């Protein structure tokens, strides 16, 4: 298939997935902010979210203080912020538009419909409905896109690049969501394992639809190490890093060309390290340090995919 087409498909999927994960990240923080706590604790939580998305500089250029409304403004509606939900849904739609002949009409209509509806939302409208409802909407539109992709697209190269985009983005986002927790300090007076801590971890689990899964898998108290294991190493958990890299690696093998061997090897290496990794080792070295390295490797693989497949190179 055309390199340009593959590029559009890959980014269409990435942006849709990114919109979903921003909604998830904001949702977890919003839930956390509802719990009784000192004001500065809440600010720290929002600041950590901004930092993890690399948006703290842009934020402070635009606003003087941290409030949920400002954060929502920047992360949901801002036209200059390339990582706002608004921008992601628009970019997903623009990419789909460029390849509307390659994707199924159902997928095009879904993506286009999501964007048309997004244009109706405004900060004012969000005060009328619960903001959580909006996050729910974004999540469900993303579910719908993914479902339509799986349910209607021929499983050819176009599908593979769409899948690679989805899982690479999710690998990045899951790592970031997990890292947010690590940027937070426990509220003064709380000890690790206390009520506040429990609330934070469970909110985090809920944000990646893993709360019930956790209960089912561990049938035990929520501990940081188990949460990390679930979100990083359990390949049967659909949003875990292990699952994402497994999908990336498998799909990469199917589209391999004569330039892509090294990219495949790196994805495979990462897949193997997650498959055979132990959570104790990760925790011993520090979760945050580990996640920083993960993000760098995901970035490296996505750069290499762009070079090997997507950016047109003259013969």
């Amino acid at each position: 298939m055309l390199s340009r087409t593959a590029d559009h498909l890959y980014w269409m999927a990435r942006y849709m997935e990114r919109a979903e994960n921003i909604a998830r990240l904001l949702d977890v923080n919003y839930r956390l902010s509802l719990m009784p706590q000192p004001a500065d604790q809440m600010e720290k939580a929002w600041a950590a979210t901004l930092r993890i998305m690399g948006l703290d500089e842009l934020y402070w250029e635009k606003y003087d203080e941290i409030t949920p409304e400002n954060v929502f403004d920047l992360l949901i509606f801002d036209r200059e912020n390339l990582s706002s939900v608004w921008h992601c849904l628009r970019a997903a739609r623009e990419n789909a538009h460029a390849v509307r002949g390659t994707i199924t009409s159902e997928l095009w209509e879904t993506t286009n419909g999501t964007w048309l509806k997004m244009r109706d939302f405004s900060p004012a409208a969000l005060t009328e409905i619960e903001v959580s409802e909006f996050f729910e909407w974004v999540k469900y539109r993303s579910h719908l896109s993914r479902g339509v992709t799986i349910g209607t697209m021929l499983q050819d190269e176009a599908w593979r690049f769409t899948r690679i985009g989805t899982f690479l983005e999710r690998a990045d986002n899951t790592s970031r969501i997990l890292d947010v927790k690590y940027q937070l300090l426990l509220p003064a007076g709380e000890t690790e394992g206390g009520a506040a801590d429990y609330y934070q971890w469970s909110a985090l689990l809920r944000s990646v639809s893993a709360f019930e899964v956790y209960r089912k898998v561990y049938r035990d108290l929520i501990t940081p190490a188990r949460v990390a294991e679930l979100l990083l190493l359990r390949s049967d958990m659909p949003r875990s890093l292990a699952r994402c890299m497994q999908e990336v690696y498998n799909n990469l093998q199917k589209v391999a060309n004569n330039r892509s061997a090294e990219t495949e090897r790196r994805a495979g290496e990462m897949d193997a390290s997650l498959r055979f990794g132990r959570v104790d080792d990760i925790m011993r070295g520090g979760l945050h340090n580990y996640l920083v390295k993960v993000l760098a490797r995901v970035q490296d693989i996505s750069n290499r995919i762009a070079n090997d497949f997507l950016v047109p190179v003259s013969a």
Partner: protein
Amino acid sequence: MTIKKFFNEMTDDAGSVRPHYAGYSAWLSEMPQERIAHKRAEADALFHRFGITFAVYGEEGGKERLIPFDIIPRIIPDEEWKALAAGLKQRVKALNAFIHDVYHDQNILKAGRIPKEYVLQNGQYRPEMKGVDVAGDIYAHIAGVDVVRAGQGEFYVLEDNLRVPSGVSYMLENRKMMMRLFPRLFSRNKIAPVDRYPDMLLNTLRSVAPTGVTDPTVVVLTPGAYNSAYFEHAFLAQQMGVELVEGQDLFVDDDQVFMRTTRGPQRVDVIYRRIDDDFLDPLVFRKDSVLGVAGLMRAYHAGRVTLCNAVGTGVADDKSVYVFVPEMVRFYLGEEPILNNVPTYQCRLKDDYAYVMDHLPDLVVKEVHGAGGYGMLVGPASTKAEIEAFRERIVAAPDKYIAQPTLALSACPTFVESGIAPRHIDLRPFVLSGSNEIQLIPGGLTRVALREGSLVVNSSQGGGTKDTWVLEA
């Protein structure tokens, strides 16, 4: 301006329904108005969701708009269609023969049937095509001939669009929409299907592959997602199951065209290009073109790739050459033309010029190279000031203009604010010429001027579209 007397497609002069509209008319009268209004709203919502839109040049941010779709079909009885189809095939056959001739022996010019300068000094004449042989000697593979009815219902050809005619996707989508909204209408009427068009188009394109290529790779070349007809480009590529490419996706190596794919270069044999000649190859035509492919013309000259339509077809659909199409039919086919031309005054001729200047308020004046309803004057619909302003433009450059009597275009009942009222329409059938046969799908795109009294059907000027039914006998 309102044209008092015009041919009504649905009713005769006495006001009774014409036989081929009887079935539809009965159905319509049973239909409650609210239900119709509801169906119209449904159609709008669906078109929006499907993203069947076009971009309007000059509007802010390349805004996308819907082309208004009217749910009352334009119906053509079988025998009328047969005559029209025969006339269209004859015309396109002659036009292809003409284009081949002017780029080779120029017999028609030598015979003095068309003045040389009309052709050789025409801006649309491409010296680059002189002596170039194209597959099957076919130049206009896809023609979208604009036809209108006037007077007592006679058909006239208004324009032969031989470059990159568009609109066929609306023909197909309108039909799909009608079937979705009113499935029962289709079981009650014998309506000729149109959905074979993409297959016919693909066969036509494959039939003109370069010699020696047995399993040709066909692509659609688009200027990109911001072009006004992008929807159609993507639609046709998808329906034919071929790649939709942009100039940046193609390159030429050793006179062969390739596309850049995820698995490396892949050879391309036939390009259904939806960009104008001027932008095809920056090495030969406009140097600032980023839409085309450097070296494409070299590959084309070498016979390694087929361009559809061929380069240089504009010389035959130019409004100053239009006048001679009936002569082409006689010259190349030895037949009398089946379809009428609209009487045309050429402002470059002294007598015609004088006549045009005396009768501006009654005439339609068009730029010779204009298209899309831009840069034209509809005399009877214009103010004195507008007419005088246009007069100055003609005086300044008479060669650039032709004029035609204002035709009383036929009208078809249409849903408008005030209910159902007649609105003027035209018809663009699509004629496909391959190396073995000339084919066309029964019907075409019917465009309708939605403003009362307006004769301008172009979508850029507030026109809408209708489904077009050819009733099978």
